[in-house]
């Protein structure tokens, strides 16, 4: 690519790119995000290239690897243009048929279409699939249309036009006014208005200022930022350059996890391309504005997602937070005014500049504007990345977009905001999702993790799991966080092992208060959320564990036992053979009995017992019935008895 010297030059180049593209030329696109990669998209890609060659379509059909489409449950996803036929769970062996039937004959391969599990109806286009139909994909949408390694693709969809507009038609103050007017709140978790942060950094005294992209996404199960960085890195760069111009910064950093190899690769390529095209470097687009970006690879500490820890890590020190105030806006990286925003926040900027604050504020609720990308995972049919307007209800996300709970199970709770978020029960499913409403019910927006839990989830165990995560991931510097989490984790572990005592719940609440009030950074201040929210909504489960030594969801190993019902056991030998510790006694025509001493409660017998017998029972909070006497164990089969 050549250097672009003016907005007119940019527009000319875009038209040039488009004129060389034939909209009616068949093009097969394949989702190549990390999730699809794990489902084998590379092999599918190789098959596509081979098959196009083999069937003599070279030059007649385009092939494009795109960023993540979000419907990760059904990956790899292939979409064939111009008809936009969408095939799910595509395997290499499907490619020959797709090529001959769809690319050549323009016919649909029925078996690869989406089938609605409720109605049995098939959907030919992505937009007909309920998962996509109920989303509003402003930021994440372009992912599926572009090859993240191609700046031409980004330019073709209007890329860097917002930058040209900001540099040539707006003053830095006007850019900040637009972002403030849009009321864009930080997507990294705290929801602080981005425009106010920018203004503070702009007004802070000092020549040298820095802007930073925070891509240290560490919540278990969350990968929104990763997919944006992998799938559309130029949108993040464009946002960052606009922010730098507004704030008056000439140096930027992208802090990205080393364990996101594809994001690291694609961002690296994008920076080089942007430099070649003159979107980065000196005299950007001929405007006289200079700006450079360096990528910093983080070593994967959760706490480095906290902005002051991130700064310490960038400075080459241990990733531990510093006190605020002073805020990074006045004293940040190397004590210079610094503005840090999360990936998704930056990616919203080009959109706001292009469409204007008024359009942006037409989406969302009173206090939270625009859309939010969530990582919808756990016990939900359609797992994946979803982008929805602020103000949608949790119920719509879980049931309309997510397709409900698998296996006919009952919904129990949804955990939002990652390890320091909260668990929201059924009674609050109709709240409108925004920063303030989630806080009202004891959860947080966080960066957008959303874990759905069904009736088989133990809420004490959930709290214990998240506290164990935080016990590892706290930096360990301050007492309330380190020692508070240590003690809370001990109490939760005791409760889940049946060693809970009267007063434990009250002590957890007291510890939570201290940890929340006195910790140095947001990690500690939010660490008690999983404990407090589960106590608030599921106190009865805590009490069952403590008082009755019973786990109502049959999860906590120390509190459950497996038992074979002698009346229904058919002595089929399946569980007996599968038991990994040979804890099941029995034989042919001999009713099976579990030796409770040997049993490790792995649950294998429960899973393998044929449903028509259903002889293996899980029990909790009651004694295991004594084994039936050996002489009564023989089964006399009716057919053979005659």
């Amino acid at each position, binding site marked *: 690519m050549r250097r672009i010297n003016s907005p007119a030059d940019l527009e000319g180049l875009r038209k040039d790119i488009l004129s060389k593209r034939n909209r009616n030329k068949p093009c097969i696109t394949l989702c190549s995000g990390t999730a699809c990669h794990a489902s084998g998209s590379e092999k599918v890609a190789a098959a596509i290239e081979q098959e196009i060659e083999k069937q003599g379509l070279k030059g007649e059909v385009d092939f494009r690897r795109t960023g993540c489409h979000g419907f990760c449950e059904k990956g790899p996803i292939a979409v064939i243009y111009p008809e936009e036929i969408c095939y799910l769970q595509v395997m290499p062996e499907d490619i020959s048929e797709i090529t001959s039937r769809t690319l050549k004959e323009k016919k649909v391969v029925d078996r690869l279409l989406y089938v609605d599990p409720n109605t049995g109806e098939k959907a030919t286009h992505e937009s007909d699939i309920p998962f996509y139909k109920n989303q509003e994909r402003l930021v994440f949408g372009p992912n599926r249309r572009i090859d993240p390694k191609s700046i031409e693709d980004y330019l073709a969809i209007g890329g860097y036009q917002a930058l040209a507009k900001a540099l040539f038609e707006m003053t830095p103050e006007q850019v900040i006014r637009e972002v403030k007017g849009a009321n864009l709140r930080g997507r990294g978790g705290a929801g602080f208005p981005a425009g106010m942060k920018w203004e503070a950094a702009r007004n802070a005294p000092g020549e040298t200022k820095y802007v930073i992209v925070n891509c240290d996404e560490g919540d278990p199960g969350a990968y929104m930022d990763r997919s944006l960085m992998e799938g559309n890195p130029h949108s993040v760069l464009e946002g960052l350059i606009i922010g730098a111009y507004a704030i008056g910064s000439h140096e930027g950093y992208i802090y990205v996890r080393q364990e996101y190899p594809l994001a690291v690769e694609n961002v690296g390529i994008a920076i080089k391309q942007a430099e070649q095209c003159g979107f980065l470097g000196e005299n950007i687009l001929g405007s006289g504005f200079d700006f450079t970006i360096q990528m910093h690879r983080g070593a994967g*500490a959760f*706490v480095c997602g906290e902005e002051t820890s991130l700064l310490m890590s960038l400075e080459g020190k*241990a990733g531990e937070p510093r*006190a605020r*105030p*002073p805020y990074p806006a006045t004293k940040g990286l190397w004590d210079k005014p610094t503005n840090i925003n999360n990936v998704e926040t930056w990616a919203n900027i080009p959109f706001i500049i292009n469409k204007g604050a008024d359009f942006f504020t037409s989406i969302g609720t009173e206090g939270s504007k625009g859309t939010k990308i969530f990582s919808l995972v756990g016990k939900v049919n359609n797992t994946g990345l979803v982008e929805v307007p602020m103000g949608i209800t949790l119920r719509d996300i879980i049931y309309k977009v997510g397709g409900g709970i698998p296996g006919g199970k009952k919904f129990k709770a949804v955990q939002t905001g990652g390890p320091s978020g909260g668990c929201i029960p059924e009674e609050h499913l109709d709240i409108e999702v925004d920063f303030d409403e989630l806080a009202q019910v004891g959860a947080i927006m966080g960066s957008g993790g959303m874990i759905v839990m069904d009736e088989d989830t133990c809420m004490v165990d959930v709290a214990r799991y998240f506290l164990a995560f*935080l*016990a*590892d*991931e*706290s*930096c*360990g*510097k*301050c*007492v*309330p966080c*380190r*020692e*508070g*989490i*240590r*003690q809370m*984790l*001990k109490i939760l572990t005791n409760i889940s092992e049946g060693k809970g005592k009267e007063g434990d719940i009250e002590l957890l609440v*007291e*510890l939570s*208060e*201290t940890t929340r*009030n*006195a*910790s*140095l950074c947001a990690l500690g201040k939010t660490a008690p959320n999983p404990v407090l929210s589960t106590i608030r909504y599921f106190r009865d489960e805590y009490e069952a564990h403590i008082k009755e030594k019973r786990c109502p969801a049959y999860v906590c190993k120390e509190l459950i036992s497996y038992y074979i019902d002698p009346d229904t056991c058919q002595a089929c030998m399946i569980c007996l053979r599968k038991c990994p510790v040979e804890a099941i006694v029995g034989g042919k025509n001999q009713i099976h009995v579990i030796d409770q001493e040997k049993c490790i409660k792995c649950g294998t017998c429960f899973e393998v017992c044929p449903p028509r017998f259903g002889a293996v029972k899980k029990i909790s909070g009651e004694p295991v019935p004594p084994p039936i006497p050996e002489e009564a164990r023989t089964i006399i089969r009716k057919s053979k008895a005659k």
Partner: protein
Amino acid sequence: MSKIILQIDEKKVEAREGMTILEAAHSVGIFIPTLCHHEKLEPYGACRICTVEVETHGRTNLIASCLYPVEQDLVVRTRSEKVDKTRKMILELMLAHAPDDPALQDLAKEYGADKNRFEKEPSFCILCGLCVRYCAEVKKKNAVGFVNRGIRREISFIPEIASKECLNCKECFSLCPTGALQAAFVLTEALAFPPPPSEPVPDE
């Protein structure tokens, strides 16, 4: 340097810009307890025993006074129900490590902290970092540092440096708020098994 007037415990206090609340309070003889603070060292904010209540922009917050810069018209309360409750819990959490430490016991008496609230932890160290920071900032030797993070965080002497520097210094011992025991123990442990000189230290 411009003067800043703030209120600490209903007393008007004049402070210089850039001072912390702790410094401002001490300058007029108002006592705030500290454990990880040392005049010669940069403020650290780890023990949180210096937590006070501040009222700013109509909101009340608990903050660490050793790090919080003074602001014009800030209202500070060094004792309140919330402050005392927080300090009590922080002490109880630390007493699980060092139940017999005199400094902690004095504070425990003041705030009614129960040293048996939590099960005894194996290490005396409350990770105030005085030894680590003194060695780095004053002695410039970096013979002792932190290892690991989260609940596994601990102090550790670097045998290669400690074997040369520590035996004639030991100045960090007397700084230790939990009675020098932990530092002495960790140092002995580090020096007991120095790596053989022929074996180079692996590079990162």
